[in-house]
């Protein structure tokens, strides 16, 4: 009636690995050092274009000439000082913007009334060119460092707000249900559900905020700045010094790319709890 089936006799006890192979639909395994491939390729195309004359130097300076201009700026025009001034403005502005943006996002994300008050003005601010708002900021904050930092803070606030708000609102409702049955207060809810749940959104916002803060420098450093990368680019534009502009752009590109990669790397670390197509 019941038989104990014996293990088949032809056991192959090798350590061969023959798995079931399925067509992979996701992106697959990460390529090591993929981080560098894009920029390297970019540089290669640029260099090739310049060398063959496809890219005329009047339009885009050749990489080697940029290197020379870089050196010249470094030695003769305090490029390091420019970078540091810009970095200082960007970092302070960014910090303010990130904090305010996140706080506003939580306020407006968790309360319909807060939302109706906060959301509209931010959406409107977002649709209006920053350059056009500068006269207002000058009137309120002068043309000193304060105006620059406030402007950058306002620029970076927007992506942080929008992304955090969106991330928060996209949290699966079942976790809010759980929290409600567990009987925690608003504070704990924010700390344990809202912030971690909105973190992926926030991090995406950070990627935009970081680049926005740098782009904002170009705008604010047109006003009463004596140092800064944006200032350097503005001057060079007026003079038509393509090579110096490109030095500025390269610095932007490098900073932007590194900052972006840093945020993404952080994301990968702090979002280790997720199993997504990324993994």
């Amino acid at each position: 009636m019941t038989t104990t089936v014996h293990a088949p006799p032809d056991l192959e006890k090798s350590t061969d690995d023959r798995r079931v192979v399925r067509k992979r639909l996701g992106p697959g395994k990460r390529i090591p050092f993929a981080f560098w491939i894009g920029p390297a390729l970019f540089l290669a195309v640029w260099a090739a274009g310049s060398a063959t004359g496809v890219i005329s130097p009047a339009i885009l300076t050749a990489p080697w000439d940029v290197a020379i201009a870089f050196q010249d700026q470094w030695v003769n025009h305090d490029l390091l000082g420019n970078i540091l001034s810009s970095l200082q403005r960007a970092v302070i502005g960014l910090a303010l913007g990130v904090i305010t943006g996140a706080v506003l996002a939580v306020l407006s994300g968790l309360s319909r009334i807060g939302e109706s008050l906060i959301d509209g003005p931010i959406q409107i601010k977002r649709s209006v060119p920053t350059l056009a708002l500068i006269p207002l900021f000058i009137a309120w904050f002068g043309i000193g460092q304060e105006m620059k930092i406030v402007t950058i803070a306002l620029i970076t606030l927007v992506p942080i707000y929008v992304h955090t708000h969106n991330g928060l609102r996209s949290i699966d409702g079942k976790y809010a249900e759980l929290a409600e049955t567990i009987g925690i207060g608003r504070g704990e809810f924010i700390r344990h559900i809202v912030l971690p749940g909105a973190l992926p959104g926030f991090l995406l916002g950070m990627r935009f905020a970081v680049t926005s803060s740098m782009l904002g420098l170009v705008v604010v450093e047109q006003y009463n700045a004596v140092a800064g990368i944006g200032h350097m680019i503005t001057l060079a534009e007026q003079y038509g010094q393509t090579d110096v502009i490109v030095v500025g752009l390269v610095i932007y590109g490098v900073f932007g790319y590194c900052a972006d990669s840093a945020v993404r790397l952080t994301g990968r670390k702090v979002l280790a709890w997720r199993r997504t197509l990324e993994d």
Partner: protein
Amino acid sequence: MASHVGGLTQTAVRVRNLHRSFSKNGGVLNGLDLDIAAGEFVALIGRSGTGKSTLLRALAGLDRGVAGHGQIAVPESVSVVFQDSRLLPWKRILDNVVFGLRGSDAGARGRQALAEVGLAGRETAWPYQLSGGEQQRAALARSLVREPQLLLADEPFGALDALTRIRMHVLLRKLCEAHRPAVLLVTHDVDEAIVLADRVILLDDGVVRTDVRVDLPDRSRSSAGFAELRTFLLDELGVEEENR
């Protein structure tokens, strides 16, 4: 919020004329009445899709948007074991278990609860790293460690093997004896209902169709009363003789 009814036993849960429906065509709960005394263990059985979870969610106050009416009174502190284990994916297992727990010994209590459900050593795992049954046990630990006045458990043992399930039964009974919460446990396993509960109710057509008290001196499955009650409930569920 708890409603106290005069008399010897306190009523922990009191539901009157409860209606809930998700569409215009028909209700899921159609005037359901239910009382659960403090400390009473009630098992809820019923066909898939009859509204067991809907009832639990109503008791837990999680159905704000759902159409319907009726009166519900439940104790202040309620704990829910959801049908899905609902662990917060961004918290490690121990943090999930002690989530919202107050007191300096929260960590220790959480660890102990985890050990009791057989998950000692998995404190720092992420939820996705647990097997289905392990997740279910973690969710159970999260509810048990809270010592609520009312425990609402929606098929908390569905993904467990026979032996683990029996261990969890023992654990649950032990905790019930210690803290005497009112329990409403949804299960599909009639045997489990009889082994654990003081009363078994059967939900059908949106009302409690059958409501039997389990008054067995001996709850072992070999006892005569057990088999008789089991037969009665399976009859009520519509399971035919040959499939039991």
